[in-house]
């Protein structure tokens, strides 16, 4: 259902807020919103809460949605803001701390380690679990950026508006996120081989 809908051009324009057509359009995004919430929170109960809260706000503030604009991007903006507010409420871990830590990690020289190829990584039986673990291990802002770009296929400009940062920052988060992810996936089997030999 969702796959057929291009992120930038939602199928048709949803009806005005308050109508069944609008409600149905919003409900059609339930699954992708939940998958995104799960990747952001890394916790099923929190993801469920986050999605419900997003729905409550989407309908409560539905008069702020401008017809003809991208409903999916609007919903993801609410999801993002709700999540950030919760993070702020829950802890003092900020994205900035994350970024610094990874800035260091990502700027480390590549070292002598041979690069795996994406093709070989994609053939691994254990890839699903490895990929989820590698994604979950990324700092929150990078995880969100690569997810919105590569899984949800939003444009840089859409992500920038959603997340409230400049386009350059979006690109550098995507870049670091992708590289870090690949580095971790490249390392996983190498470690296993070493372990097997010992």
């Amino acid at each position: 259902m969702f796959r057929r809908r291009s992120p930038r051009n939602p199928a048709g324009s949803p009806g005005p807020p308050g109508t069944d057509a609008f409600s149905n359009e919003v409900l059609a995004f339930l699954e992708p919103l939940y998958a995104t919430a799960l990747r952001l929170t890394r916790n099923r109960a929190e993801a469920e809460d986050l999605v419900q809260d997003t729905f409550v706000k989407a309908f409560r503030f539905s008069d702020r949605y401008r017809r003809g604009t991208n409903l999916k991007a609007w919903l993801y903006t609410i999801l993002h803001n709700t999540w950030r507010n919760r993070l702020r409420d829950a802890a003092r871990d900020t994205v900035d701390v994350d970024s610094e830590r990874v800035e260091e990690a990502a700027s480390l020289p590549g070292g002598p380690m041979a690069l795996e190829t994406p093709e070989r990584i994609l053939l691994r039986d254990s890839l699903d679990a490895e990929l989820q673990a590698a994604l979950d291990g990324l700092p929150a802002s990078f995880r969100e950026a690569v997810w919105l770009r590569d899984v949800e296929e939003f444009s840089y400009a859409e992500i920038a508006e959603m997340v409230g940062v400049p386009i350059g920052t979006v690109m550098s988060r995507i870049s670091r996120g992708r590289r870090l992810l690949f580095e971790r996936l490249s390392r996983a089997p190498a470690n296993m081989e070493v372990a097997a030999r010992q």
Partner: protein
Amino acid sequence: MSDCRRTADRLTPYVDEALPPAERADVEHHLTACPPCRVSAEQEQGGRTVLRERAEQLRHESLPPGLRTRCAAIARQHTRGASAAVWRTRLLPASLAVALVLFTAFTVVMLATQRSNTLLAAQLTADHAKCFRVFPPPDRDLDARVAEERLSSQYGWDIHVPPSSARDGVRLVSARRCLYGDGRVPHLLYDADGHPLSLFVIEGVARPDADVTTFGHRSRIWSRGPTTFVLVSPASAGDLTRAVSYVRQAAQ
């Protein structure tokens, strides 16, 4: 700016094949001459490829039971023009669900008249229960100055936040803006001898003192100048005398 830096800035649109031909050629030219940048490009390309190849699987998450029903209920409420209170009934005990429906129906009246202590107490009791249940505070103390700074920078509220007091058995655990109710009330969450305790600060309104019990929760209402304070705790928690008198005093 060095070539490496310029290349790094354009790496993402480069691997996304979103660069104009001239810039693309420029990046490629640098990559052939610079092994470290080439490694970066290969890594980014590798991460992108793996993610996009697996995007479909990643997107596929089975929904938790009941989530669709609850979200559909939220949508239905909206379509009917009523408020979106239904999902909360799954999360709150029945008496609180009644409180939520009541306060939603009467909030407008209450805000207009500013008269009924019972309705104010019912609304804040619902907010108290909702915040502690839906957004369980982390199990560690929140520094009062951090809370003040957060409320000020995020919402423009300049209020005094009573800090934790070990002597009085009170721990500040969270500070937030209450989303429900009229959406504009600072809500301070405390742990008082193991019981949830809420302090709401309503500015610009003065009320006579009152002590009201609604839906199993006790609300102590008092004013200082043009500010009304409301302390909410479960009635079953006893009178929490020490904690309450500490927060009352410290809140002024």
